[in-house]
């Protein structure tokens, strides 16, 4: 008897939907084993991690707040990943978006009006796009690898933010803390539900979700991106310019990441600080793949990922476990998603070997 991987005649649609669920299940099992080894009650830990954050209105608000930037970043990234454009620097573009929109809010401090709100969103998107334009230009002009360029630019962006909040943009009334003034009223997104911190950024995410869905499923440019990703030679044959695919992908993911940074500072933080994201831009890579690079899947995946952030915090608070558990869970999840992906194109068969042959 032996197990054999056999290629499927066509990719399995059922497995395409089932693998994220299988991966989530395997992550749970690995989690139980992990907590068992750590000497904590695995079921209590899993309850604290996955269920407890859903038991109050406030924490459901928190769930959506954290899912918003994840969703925004992951939607943009999934467009690029479909087109074989590997933007790993959403975190940097998110930071630049926050700097651009925050800078605008500070520049017009105390003279703002209703016009500021849409302008800040626009500035944030443009900031992210400008940061993503650097890898796009270097890739199309010099064939520089966008993975490395976009990743390294993340650290540059974080340094720039640190410089600004420690120096020129530091709040004059802030007792020398490294943070800016709190944005004016029109620089803050309105709270949606009383008693929570849930802000209107969720709507921004939903609008972007609809736009990306429409782009990928119905637009010709979206089709070009998908062809370029699946069969580069076919794209060249049809005359779809690879340069434009790189630019379109990076501009879209830059804009959505910039928006993510913007809604984060406008809605949740309401000022600029040295750290504005606990790695949303990187976690969004996992979200994009967990969601099968499909907008609907990405929505579900961003909720799950957000839950893992909250779960990590509640484990830390009520069971004294290190916050690193969140990272471990994210890693396990990505590992199992990529691993179980094999099942989409292959099936496992048990083969009875009727003859054993000498080597």
């Amino acid at each position, binding site marked *: 008897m032996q197990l054999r991987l056999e290629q499927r005649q*066509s990719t399995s649609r059922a497995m395409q939907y089932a693998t994220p669920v299988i991966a989530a299940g395997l992550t749970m099992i690995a989690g139980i084993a992990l907590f068992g080894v750590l000497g904590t009650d695995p079921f209590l830990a899993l309850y604290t991690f996955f269920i407890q954050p859903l038991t109050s209105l406030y924490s459901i608000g928190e769930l959506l707040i954290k899912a918003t930037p994840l969703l925004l970043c992951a939607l943009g990234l999934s467009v690029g990943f479909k087109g074989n454009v590997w933007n790993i620097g959403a975190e940097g573009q998110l930071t630049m978006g926050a700097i651009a929109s925050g800078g605008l809010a500070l520049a017009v401090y105390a003279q703002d009006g209703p016009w500021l709100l849409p302008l800040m969103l626009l500035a944030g998107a443009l900031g992210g796009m400008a940061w993503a334009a650097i890898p796009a230009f270097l890739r199309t002009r010099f064939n520089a690898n966008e993975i490395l360029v976009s990743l390294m630019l993340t650290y540059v962006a974080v340094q720039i933010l640190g410089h600004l909040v420690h120096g020129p943009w530091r709040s004059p009334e802030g007792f020398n803390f490294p943070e800016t003034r709190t944005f004016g009223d029109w620089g803050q997104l309105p709270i949606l539900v009383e008693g929570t911190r849930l802000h209107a950024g969720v709507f921004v995410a939903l609008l972007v979700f609809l736009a990306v869905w429409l782009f990928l499923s119905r*637009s010709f440019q979206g089709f070009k991106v998908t062809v370029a990703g*699946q069969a580069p*030679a076919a794209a060249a*044959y049809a005359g779809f310019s690879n340069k434009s695919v790189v630019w379109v992908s990076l501009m879209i993911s830059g804009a959505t990441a910039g928006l993510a940074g913007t809604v984060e500072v406008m809605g949740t933080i309401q000022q600029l600080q040295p750290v504005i994201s606990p790695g949303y831009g990187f976690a969004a890579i996992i979200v994009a793949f967990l969601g099968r690079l499909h907008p609907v899947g990405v929505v579900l995946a961003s909720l799950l990922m957000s839950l893992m952030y909250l779960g990590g915090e509640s484990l830390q608070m009520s069971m004294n476990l290190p916050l690193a558990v969140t990272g471990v869970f994210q890693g396990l999840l990505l590992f199992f998603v990529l691993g179980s992906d094999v099942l989409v194109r292959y099936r496992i068969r048990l083969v009875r070997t009727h003859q054993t*042959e000498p080597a």
Partner: protein
Amino acid sequence: MTPQLDLREITKRYPGCLANDRVGLTVMPGEIHALLGENGAGKSTLVKIIYGVVKPDAGEIWWNGSQVDIANPNAARALGIGMVFQHFNLFESLTVAENISLGIDPGHDLAKLTNEIGEISERYGLPINPHQHIHTLSVGERQRVEIIRCLVQNPRLLIMDEPTSVLTPQEVEKLFETLRRLASEGCSILYISHKLDEIKALCDTATVLRLGKVTARCSPADETPKSLAEMMIGSALPVTKKSTNRELTEEPLLELRGLDLPAADPLGTHLQNVTLTLNRGEVVGLAGVAGNGQKELLAAINGERLAPDKAMLRLDGRDVGRDGPEERRVQGLAFVPEERLGRGSVPEMSLTANTLLTWHHKGQVKRGFVDLAEVSAQAITIREMFDVRCPGVEAEAKSLSGGNLQKFIVGREILQEPEVLILGYPTWGVDVGAAAAIRQAILNLSATGAGVLIVSEDLDELFEICDRIAVIAEGRLSPARRTGNTSIEELGLWMSGQFEAAEVSDAA
């Protein structure tokens, strides 16, 4: 007499298909035996079983009177089975002798081997210098190296897999002499091909496979190419009809004017001063041995690689040398590329999406958005008019058989009603029925006034449907001759690059 090789009830099953179904094959000593069948009939699986690459699920292999188990190619070679593959396995930077010494069991003397190579090369008419480096050899010479590599091991059975696709007609004749000589000395030859004329000329007996089963055993000398083809496809051969006595007008649709394009990669071919005119209603064929610049020329005509000067390519009177594929398509160009999967189509996309791939400049895209209903209707039309057999237009391209996918791609390009249609190897690896349908569609298109340029290695095909034929060799193009005014011999000579004299006489 004991058969050299006797296969009994060989069965091999792959997921979703029965590649060999109780196949029997008997090859006598000194016999040249043809293995005949369409693509997907199970020929390569059977050969891989004989050469020990694939294990059969059931069945027996008898070698010279005793049953054997061929576990791997080394075991096959030890028995005396040699094989010349369609794709060569040679190290470019090593010499002929070094390559041959790598292919045989270790522990021999290179100097002695070099002598041996000299002897074999003389005895079988395979001229080669053992000290030459592979990268300096032509394709025909490389094939000789592969053959000699088998012969130094004194094989009792030599398997040749589609050996003539890379040879000029003259080289084919030489190869046949070598094979006849070998056979006369008692070596059996298993010859795999779908070129029926060759099999008739060379082989003593033939086994015909269809859908994994043996459907006929015959003596090719007693058959006609037509009857052999009918055994292969299992039904009457479709006939292509050419409208006779068409008056060709001199109205240029596509003009290549001194196209000069350096190779894009070190192994590519430099196109030099390529000049050709394709007129309205005309079918022009481009013959040549593979790897002489066909790939580069097709990419240059489609616009995947731009010409250095816009005037080097004219399409319907306009200079398009610097325009990309989409712009040329708008000007009336359509192109069926050499590779069906991954270039002519996106393997994991539906036929509908693959219709959109090249058919999007005639109202299918409105304000950036795709009219899916329209595209889907076009895909259905292609499927119906070109008899594409598939579950529906939402089927993935890769789930179609080669012939059906090719019919789909040819249909997609023809139904765009192009002024100029370019085809790269349109019937390569396509079953006989589909090939005939494709040729007929090409003729029908040219009858409506379009110009058609076909690049193919199949001279019979070119003679059947072309008005004029030219040859490409080492990146240069010969003059195009009227099909009636040329011969296989002349084209064969041109394929080796000897058409300088013809150019002069043509110009005069």
